[in-house]
Every structure is written in C-alpha cells, then in structure tokens.
C-alpha cells in the first residue's frame, strides 16, 4: 500500500507519469498528436455512421477484438524498450494457441497443465531468442525471423495444418468467453497484464535497466548494468505474452486456425511504434502501446463500417506504422 501511495505521488509530480514528456517548463504538445488523431477518428466515424459506429455493440466489440493484439503488443514493448526487435511474437501466439488447442482437444490434459505448457513454451521461445541475440551476437531481426519460421513449422506440425474447432472443454471455452456487461474476458486479462507490465517498466529497477540498456547499451554496461540479462528478460516477456495471447485467443474463439498470429504481426508493431510517440517522446511504454492498439482497431473497424473493403485493414495498419516511425524520427531530430 505504501508503495502505491509512493507511485501516485510520483505520478502527480511535475515529472509526471510519462517521464520524458516534460522537458523543462513547457509541455511538449506533440506527444498528444496521436490522441488527437484518435479523437478525430472517433468524431469522423461517429458523425458519418453514428447509429452503427457509436453503438454499444460496436464499442464493446472494438474493446474485445483488440485485447489479444494488445497483450502481444505489450510483450513486444519490452523488447523494443531494450532496443531490440522481435518478429516472432506473432509466431509465438500461433504456436501458443496451437499447443493449447491440441493439448485440450487431443490429449485431454487438464487446463492447468495446458496453461503451464503454453507458458513454458513462451518462456522457452523468449530464452531462445534472447540467448541467440546476446550469446551469439546475431542481429535480433535475423534471429526472430528464423525463430518465427521454426515456430510456424512446429505449429503446422502439431495441428496437422487443420482447423481445430471441436473437443474444447467447457472450462477452456468459459475462460476465454466470460464477460461482464458484454466486455469479454480477454479485456480483463489485458488490464491485469498491462497494469503489471506498466508498473514493472516504470517503478522497478528492472524497468529502469531495460530503458537504460535500450537508450545506450555501452553506457549502461559501464554503469554496471547487466545489459545482456535485460535483453534476455525482455525477449522472455515477449515470448511468454505471445504464447499466452495465443491461448487466450483460442479460448475466446473456441476454435483454432493455424498461423492465425501472422496477420497480427504488423498491427502489433504499428501499435507499439505509435505508442512510443504517444504521451511520450520516443519511449516505448505500455499505456502508449495499448492506446496504439485501440487506435488501429478503431480506425480499421470504422473504415469497414464505412464500407471499405477488408484489405483496408492492412493499408491502415501499414500507414500507421510508417507515420508513427516518421513521427518518432521527426521528434528525435527536433529534440
């Protein structure tokens, strides 16, 4: 409790909850640009299609649909914060989902065993990525592309490349499907996970060390920070959350399509990069990532409601990713 008070005090101090936002005395209004963009999306879609877009069903469906993506993106945020890259989060989600589906429907393993197996697989994926990057000094881009392919291959192997839609236990389906006032379970899981991750990044020494290592690896090393450990830890967090997100997704859908995660990869990155320039000046942080996810989700759904074809989703996510990185670059040059 005392800890809580301490953190709240800090959040109210001029330094604020988002660290780099306050430079000296003047607030950097640029960090609000994504929020303004988000608000204008809501206003535009709301004005054009008020009946559908602003309906309770639509709002809750946006919330529900974004949750799994947001959990993956939160994990990725750790990796990006430590200055690395993880293209395997999507494959980790595919594999986590496939493993859960196969264990539940084909072996009849109890849920606890399934969950532990998926968690262990996620951690193993993260360890593999992290150790390949730190021990063998292979660029993360290459490592995680390789690991992605390995994981996708394993996913196809365990599922026999077929959709699994029968044989799920009641408990499994309930864990993915319970709701409070039409807000589904994954949203509550997301809130729980995001709060913990945000606190870790912001209020623990681990979080500080991750940001330090991401900001200047050599200087962090000279300041006695075990940089490699932070890198491995970040990959483990991403791998773990990727696999868990896959499990939650499968439980929510009540079915599994192999390699479903692939389509989530780009929005995950777009959300995290957008988040890094939201309420912060080029800093990957959890709240920003979550906002980024829902901005993309809102934009996509809004465009679909307006009658845009399905591929608009890709166009929108791609455009957001590019604009966000340009924004980050511009902000860096400006500072």
């Amino acid at each position, binding site marked *: 409790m005392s*800890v809580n008070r*301490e*953190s709240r*005090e*800090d959040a109210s101090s*001029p*330094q604020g909850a988002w*660290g*780099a936002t*306050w*430079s*000296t*005395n003047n607030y950097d209004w640029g960090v609000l640009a994504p929020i303004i963009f988000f608000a204008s999306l809501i206003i535009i879609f709301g004005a054009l299609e008020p009946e559908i877009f602003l309906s309770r069903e639509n709002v809750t469906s946006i919330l529900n649909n974004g949750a799994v993506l947001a959990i993956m993106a939160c994990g990725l945020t750790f990796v990006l914060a430590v200055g690395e890259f993880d293209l395997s989060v999507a494959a980790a989600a595919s594999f986590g989902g496939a493993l859960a589906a196969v264990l539940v429907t084909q072996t009849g393993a109890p849920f606890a065993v399934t969950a532990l197996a998926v968690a262990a697989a996620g951690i193993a994926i993260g360890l593999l990525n992290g150790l390949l990057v730190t021990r063998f000094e292979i660029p993360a881009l290459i490592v995680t592309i390789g690991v992605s392919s390995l994981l996708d291959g394993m996913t196809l192997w365990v599922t026999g490349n077929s959709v699994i839609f029968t044989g799920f236990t009641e408990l499994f389906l309930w864990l993915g499907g319970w709701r409070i006032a039409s807000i589904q379970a994954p949203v509550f899981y997301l809130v729980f996970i995001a709060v913990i991750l945000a*606190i870790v990044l912001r*209020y*623990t*020494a681990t979080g*500080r*060390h991750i*940001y*330090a290592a*991401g*900001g*200047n690896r*050599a*200087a*962090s*090393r*000279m*300041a*006695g*920070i*075990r940089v490699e450990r932070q890198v491995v830890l970040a990959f483990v967090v991403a791998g773990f959350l990727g696999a868990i997100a896959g499990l939650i997704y499968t439980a929510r859908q009540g079915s599994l399509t192999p390699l479903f995660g692939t389509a989530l990869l780009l929005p995950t990155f777009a959300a995290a990069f957008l988040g890094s320039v939201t309420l912060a000046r*080029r*800093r990957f942080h959890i709240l920003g990532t979550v906002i980024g996810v829902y901005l993309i989700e809102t934009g996509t759904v809004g465009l679909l409601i307006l009658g845009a074809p399905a591929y608009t989703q890709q166009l929108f996510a791609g455009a957001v990713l590019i604009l966000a990185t340009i924004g980050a670059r511009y902000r860096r040059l400006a*500072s």
Partner: protein
Amino acid sequence: MTTIANDRPVGSSGEIVLSFRNVSKRFGATLAVDNVSVDVVKGEIHALVGENGAGKSTLVRILAGDHVPDQGVIEVNGRQVRFRHPDEAMTHGVGFVHQIPAFVPSLSVTENLMLGLPFKFRRAGLIVWSSEHESARRTLASVGLSIDPRKPLELLRPHERQLVAVARAMKHGSRIIVLDEVSASLSEPEVRMLFEKIKDLREQDVAVIYVSHRLGEIFEIADRVTIMRDGKRIATHEMSSISRRQVVNEIVGRNAEDLFRPKQRLSKRRGEARLVVRNLGDEKLNDISFELYPGEIVGVSGLGASGRSRLLRILFGAQRASRGDIRIDGEPCRFRHASDALAAGVALVTEDRIADGFVPTLPIWQNVTLPWSASYRHRGFMQIKKEMRDAERHCRTVGVRMPSIMAQMTQLSGGNQQKAIFARWISASVRVLLLDEPTHGVDIHSKAQIYDIIRGLARDGCAILMASSELEEFEALCDRVLILRDAWIADEIAGSEINKDKILHALLA
C-alpha cells in the same frame, strides 16, 4: 619556381609538389589549425610532429578533404585544389595511409588494392581475375611484400596490411603519400621493414609526409621536420641541422597564460596502498606494475594509442588482461563485468561520454543514480522521490547547471554533462576512481570545476588514476605521473618534478 615559405630552403631538387598556404580551421572555440603554411618538396620525407591536439591530424584531414578549411588554400603541383573526398585526392596523386588503414577485411588483397579503382583486365566485360592477381602481386612486390594476393586481407599481419595500404597508394600513382601514425600498431622489426620501403619511395621521387609521435623514428628517416603547437606551425627544419633537444623544446613551447590554479598539494599518501597492480599485460600492454594510495591522484600519460584507456578499462573489468595481478586493499580482483568493479568500489569515468558516458533517453536524475539504481529498491519498487532528491543534491554539490533535474542530459552543455557524470560518484563508496580524459571536450570554466571535484574526491580518501592527453592537467592535479611508453610504464615523475616539459621529454625519450 616559387620561393619556399619555410624557414630554410631545401637543396637544389626543391621542386614544390604540395603547399599549404595560410590554412586555418576552427572548431567551436578552438582554432585547430592557425594560419599554417608548409611546403613539401619532391623526393623528401617531411615529418610533421607535435603533441596531441597540436593540429597535425586536422591539417592532414584538411588535405584529405575531410575538413573544409575556413581560410587558406592547398596547392598540388602549383595548382590550387580542394578535395571533397579521398577519391579526389587520389586522382590528384595524393595518397593516404592511416594508422588503421580502411580496408574490407573479408575481401582479397587484390580486391582491397583495387578498392575504388576500375579493374584493368577484362574480357567481354568480365574481370579476368588471374591477370588482376598477377598485377596485384607485382604491386605488392614493389613494396617488398611477397604474399598471395588472393588471401583475404584479414589473414594478413598488421605490418603487411600497412604495406598493402602503402601499395594501394602507390597503385593509384600517388606522387605524394601521407603516412599518418603508421608505426603505432607495428612492432620494432615491422617498423624497420616499413622504413626501408618508405626510403625506396623517396628514391622514386615520391614526397612523403610522415606524421608521428615518435621522435626517434623521425630522426631516423625524415629529411625535414615541421613542428606544430597549438594549431600553429612553429618551425620547419632540416633534420641535419637540429638536435632532438631542440625539437622537443619547440614541441613543448611555453604556455603564456596558466589557466589553472596554482597546484595545491592537498592529497597525500595515506596508509597502505589501495590499488596494487603487478605484471599486468595483454597484447598491447606489457608488465604494468604500480601502486595507488588513498588520497592520491596519479596520472597516466602516453602518446597516441599508448594503451592509456586500455589500462583503465582493464582495471574496471570492461576488458580482460591476459596476465597479471590486481589487488584492492589487499583483496585480489578479477572483475568480469563493470558491476563487479562497482561492487568493489572501483568506478570509471569514460573518455567518450556520448558513446558510453550517459543514456540520452533517460533524464538527468536517472543518469546520476544509474550505477546505484538497484540500491533504491524498496520491496521491489524504486524509491523515486529519494532517488530524485539524492540526484539533485549530488548535482548541486558538483555544480551542474541545469534547467531541472528532470531535464534531458542532451540539454546540458558538455561540461555540465561531465559534471553530472561525476555526480554519480560523489557520495558513493568509491575507493578507486578511474578517469579517462576527464575534461575531454569541456569548456575552460567547467574544467576548473571538474579539477575541484577531483581534488575533493581525493581529499575524501578516494584513490584516483587519471589518463589524459592534456599535459597541463597532470601539472594541475597529480601527485605522480606514470609514463606509458612502448607498452609499459617506462618512467615515473613525482611531486614538483611534474611539468609539461618534463613529461614530454619522458614520453619522447
């Protein structure tokens, strides 16, 4: 025939091939090259000497086109030139060989020789490798190298690479070759072999500009020497008409204004040795032994790449030594990581604060507490208020001028960044503080403040080892100065003996 701008005209063969005319270059507040005029004649080996920061490298880089002079012109064979790229220098017959030659290590020697040149031997537009290798073999033979040009360059020994660089300059048909600290990474016999080749170049009427710290070498091969100090050309002499003593005196010069406080000998040896180093060595350092006492400020001086930084990094655990023994307060130390060193009370202020001094994405306060951030943990959470208070206090102690403790490090001036880095160690239980160029790129005012901080730390009983390329710094601060020469501690100067002149003589001995 132009008249020669130097002090003495050179003999009858004095056809000027390269001249700097009133060249000046300013970097911020420092005039790196100050109205320098030098003529280089055909077939001579012209040495360029001066201490670190005297302006030699800047002059060379202006010639190469890396820097644009603020004033003055360069003439090659009487024609005014301004190169924008080393390529252009090459086509005008000016070749450069640097201390660490720029090569693509994974490519073959032939490919490296031809880097930036069109391949000559082609059949139906395709390269005829056998002929290219044959041609490369002949080029290498001309500098006395008999190696297989198909070998990847990375398999060559350092002097061989250096010779390949010379061969490359020759291959481009260079009539003027600049050798910049080429002997620094070479062993004695390798230097000897290289010198033979340089003398051959002179026989072929090539003009050689030889930049070096090593006076011995210059007296061995140079025909003339130009001495630089504080960006100015002090003099140009025929080697035959000048003594080593004179050259050293001209390199050192007299410092008109002493910007630093008169020496305060506050620090004194107390008690037992804090740091004892015995027979420390690796591929670049040999048999390093010394002691450091609490309250003592000891300087480490060396010219060029003498291994000053290396020594400090080894003591900090950022680099491994292959042999030797390090003890702190009698305890043997084998640091495997900087965190081990910090736990043992050994801290390092690095030379290049942009590269590894601070984290630009973290605010000042987090940078100040960075090495100790784990100690602010309370039940798993950071005590942020306490941390900020401490950081603020330390910054005030060392006099960091900043808009706010929450500001970014990048908003501070170089001097204030450096002070903020010193603020890390101010209250900490640092027993040994290693300083690598502590006032590098810092304004004169901050410099004086940093000296005060260093003296204060010593007064509090910290043992301080300081590497610097600014000799005045030793004079202002140190109780003793270790002279790092030829990979080991060749000399030691103590107490009132410490002055710039004395140190330079020891360095150049």
